[in-house]
């Protein structure tokens, strides 16, 4: 196997064998057959010289750059980072050297040169309030930019919960009128990679899939790749046996917490969260939230921010019960009123009761 990528990797001290192992791991993570790993490796290794690499345009909208941080930093300088050697990242405000008009030119040049073929990555939500004035780049609202750039894209990747569902900006009361990419673009294949931020390997896995097979991986009904979002955190959690045994940490500092018991009662949203944290982990497989002692927030699910509180168990009320006291008072009032009414009826019946005498019977 030869190609520009293999040579680049060799220069960086990464052997062909390591690269093959990486592709095989990626393929198995995505539940693809073993042969897919080799296909991926060949497709990526055969990627042509820099000028012909698949173009990727990355648009940042209402976001915190956490998604970019996640992708670029957490796995750098492992092989995860090197996968960028097979694509041509033509526009990424945070990473690119160009700024201002030069950046805009780069964007338009990439769009023109790769019309209909480039992959568009979006992170951040799109504000619709005040005609989109809440977030503008180069004098254009995010809505305008998205529509313009999406037109020529082969596919769109909505990176992070903001792009996938509206995310934090959309949290109640959604002051900017934030929406997701899929709320606006209806005529392009869209893949959602939610998470706040998403796991880096999910991103690279999807990219590798796209490069190898020219298509997006199998998606669930929320547009997420099933390979990574097919199972819940709870079902893959190493603390699951404690849940089944009924052993729960009650506070973050009790014996249960120290023994690593289940965090359900401390508000863990693992049971309703589909993501790969429990298996892939974070920071190069170092750890993940539950392993570090904190419940899952459910960041890869829609509206996770408005789910009733991070520290409330799923079976607890999402909000305080406000009507209960009033309802109880009404219940008592109605009960007492009915009783009084019934007593009145009985009294009236007693009063109206006429005694029957012998004379009456003889009539």
């Amino acid at each position, binding site marked *: 196997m030869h190609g520009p990528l293999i040579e680049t990797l060799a220069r960086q001290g990464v052997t062909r064998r390591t690269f093959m192992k990486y592709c095989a791991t990626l393929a198995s993570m995505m539940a693809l057959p073993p042969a897919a790993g080799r296909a991926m490796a060949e497709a990526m290794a055969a990627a042509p010289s820099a000028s012909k690499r698949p173009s990727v345009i990355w648009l940042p909208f209402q976001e915190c750059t956490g998604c970019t941080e996640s992708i670029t930093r957490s796995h750098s300088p492992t092989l995860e980072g090197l996968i960028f050697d097979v694509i041509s990242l033509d526009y990424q405000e945070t990473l690119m050297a160009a700024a201002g008009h030069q950046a805009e030119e780069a964007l338009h040049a990439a769009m023109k040169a790769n019309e209909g073929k480039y992959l568009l990555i979006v992170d951040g939500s799109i504000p619709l309030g005040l005609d989109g004035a809440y977030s503008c780049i180069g004098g254009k609202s995010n809505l305008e930019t998205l529509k313009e750039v999406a037109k020529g894209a082969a596919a769109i990747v909505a990176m992070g919960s903001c792009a996938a569902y509206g995310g934090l900006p959309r949290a109640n009361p959604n002051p900017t009128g934030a929406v997701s990419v899929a709320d606006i673009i209806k005529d392009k294949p869209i893949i959602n990679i939610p998470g706040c931020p998403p796991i880096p390997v999910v991103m690279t896995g999807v990219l590798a899939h796209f490069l190898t097979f020219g298509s997006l991986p199998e998606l669930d009904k929320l547009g997420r790749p099933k390979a990574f979002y097919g199972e819940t955190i709870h079902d893959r959690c190493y603390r699951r046996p404690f849940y089944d045994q009924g052993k729960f940490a009650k506070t973050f500092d009790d014996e249960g917490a120290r023994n690593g018991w289940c965090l359900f009662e401390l508000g863990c949203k693992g049971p309703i969260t589909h993501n790969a944290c429990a298996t892939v982990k974070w920071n190069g497989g170092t750890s993940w939230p539950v392993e570090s002692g904190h419940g899952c927030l459910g960041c890869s699910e*829609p509206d996770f921010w408005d789910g009733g509180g991070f520290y409330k168990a799923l079976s607890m009320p*999402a909000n305080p019960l406000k009507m209960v006291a009033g309802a*109880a008072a009404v219940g008592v009032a109605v009960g007492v009123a*009915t009783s009084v009414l019934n007593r009145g009826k009985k009294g009236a019946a007693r009063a109206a009761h006429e005694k029957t005498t012998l004379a009456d019977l003889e009539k």
Partner: protein
Amino acid sequence: MNEMQFLTWVRGQGLDLAVSLFLLGVLWRLLEIYGLGRKKDLTAPRHASGASGWHTVFRRSLPAESMLKKSPVTYIAGYTFHLGLGLVVFLFAPHIKLIQSLTGLHWPGLPSQFIDLIAIVTIAAMVVVLADRISKPVKRFISTFEDWFTWLVTFLPLLTGWLAVRHLLLPYTSMLAVHILCVEILLIVLPFTKLFHAFTVFGSRWYNGTVNGHKGVVV
């Protein structure tokens, strides 16, 4: 409304509404029933009435002589599903957590595998009870809409809860929301149907026993 919003609604406003209507109904009906009062029996009691009442509360939990043989399905399946329902509702850890958050009371739960087993047995017993009601002409004849309806609203929370835990039919989030919604329907329906026996059963037994004792029927 997506799955998460649905779940948050049933955990939030939906729960508020259901618990409120439940409390309203329970307080209303308890006050109404016990507020009715009874005419004082002026006859001299033939038997000390108090113990009779308490005795009846206990005794009527057991099948009457020869009845167990005559209609075993009613008794065995009936006991099984009542007991099972009680265990599943009050000894499943997430349920205890809910009760704790509403009332502050809590107690240890059972491991979820036990709950799972009890749930299956309870579901089976409820299906048997329904089949019995359908297949026995007399039972079918005396059954009204309320009987079928209350069976359904009792059965659905149990079934959806079990499906949710087992991840069957619908994704867990949706099934959990459907389960909570079913429980809320049950809560709203309970005070206004025959399901109110959950609150009145022992009171009415005590009353019957006391009246019978007063009349000389020693039980």
